[in-house]
């Protein structure tokens, strides 16, 4: 085995994290190779130096601070998360298929009903022939004398209505 392979295991070797057979391989190599022994000494010394450092204690208010931020984040995400496609993404395939079929049927029915109501000749004819009093439901003006302001208004919308048709 090459030195570079052995040296790549020094970290795990020092930490005692190598499997038994790997550890034996490293030990056997170290007995024969002075360069690797020197490198291992350096790695070991580095570990000794770094172990001299201490870490200060975790700030006492850290938990409260994180929980306050988490509560805020959760309440924001409840309002910001509204997404019409969210249900779709979470739905199973049969639910998606059922929703698609329902939507197609609904759209189809809507189109058919819309088409029949606009193209029906009876509704057009009725509209053309109806008096303004019936069309605009102004029957309360029907009893007014002719020549009055309201009478003139009725005459005007009757002309407009006929022109429109």
């Amino acid at each position, binding site marked *: 085995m090459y030195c570079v392979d052995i040296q*790549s295991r020094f970290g795990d070797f020092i930490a005692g994290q190598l499997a038994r057979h790997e550890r034996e391989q490293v030990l056997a190599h170290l007995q024969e190779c002075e360069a690797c022994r020197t490198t291992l000494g350096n790695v070991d010394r580095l570990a000794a*130096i770094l172990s001299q450092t*201490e870490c200060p204690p975790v700030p006492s208010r850290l*938990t409260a601070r994180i*929980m306050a931020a*988490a509560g805020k984040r959760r309440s924001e995400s409840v309002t910001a998360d509204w997404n019409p496609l969210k249900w779709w993404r979470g739905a199973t395939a049969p639910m998606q298929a059922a929703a698609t079929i329902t939507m197609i049927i609904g759209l189809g029915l809507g189109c058919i009903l819309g088409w029949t109501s606009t193209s029906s000749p009876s509704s057009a004819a009725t509209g053309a022939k109806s008096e303004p009093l019936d069309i605009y439901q102004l029957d309360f003006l029907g009893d007014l004398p002719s020549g009055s302001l309201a009478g003139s208004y009725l005459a005007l919308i009757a002309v407009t209505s006929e022109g429109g048709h």
Partner: protein
Amino acid sequence: MSDFDISDESLMEAVNKGDLNAFEQLVRRHQSWVWKIAYRFLGNSDEASDITQDAFLRLLDASRHYRVTAKFRTYFYRIITRLCIDHARKNRAVPIDSLPDIPAPGPSQIDRLEHQELESGIQKALDALPPEYRMVIILRYFEGLSGVEIANAVKKTPKGVERLLARARKNLELSLYPYSQKITDDYEGESDDSPV
């Protein structure tokens, strides 16, 4: 049943259903090591707290996509290492001259000053490393992670991690040479004094 009988993975599933008490348990369990990694990486208590908070909020956001495929800790190592490295890239060359007053061992004032000098030297040497080198050194020497665990955390192959570690060690050995000599001398001095 005590709090520690519930696995981290189960708590994450509870968090996904909106249980903030489960989230608080995760915070209490893991904040210490997360904060220490951030502190060692950044060398600053306030920034370490900010990064720790960000890491937990990321965890909260990620809870809805969380699948129990990897160990929770491995998953969280990825979050904290990513945040630290990104932070270091955005805020390059942060001078660490004001280290916090850590109670140091040693009976005399001189011992304490020497210890502070050593800590300051180590922190400066760490800060001088590129972010990825610094992170693998922290995960290896302070967190005691194996090569495979570090590889999972930093999303590299174990071989790639060993290469990073080898380069990082070389850089550190150079900058820590004076301290290394002193520690060796101290150690040898102690050995000479000790009765055979």
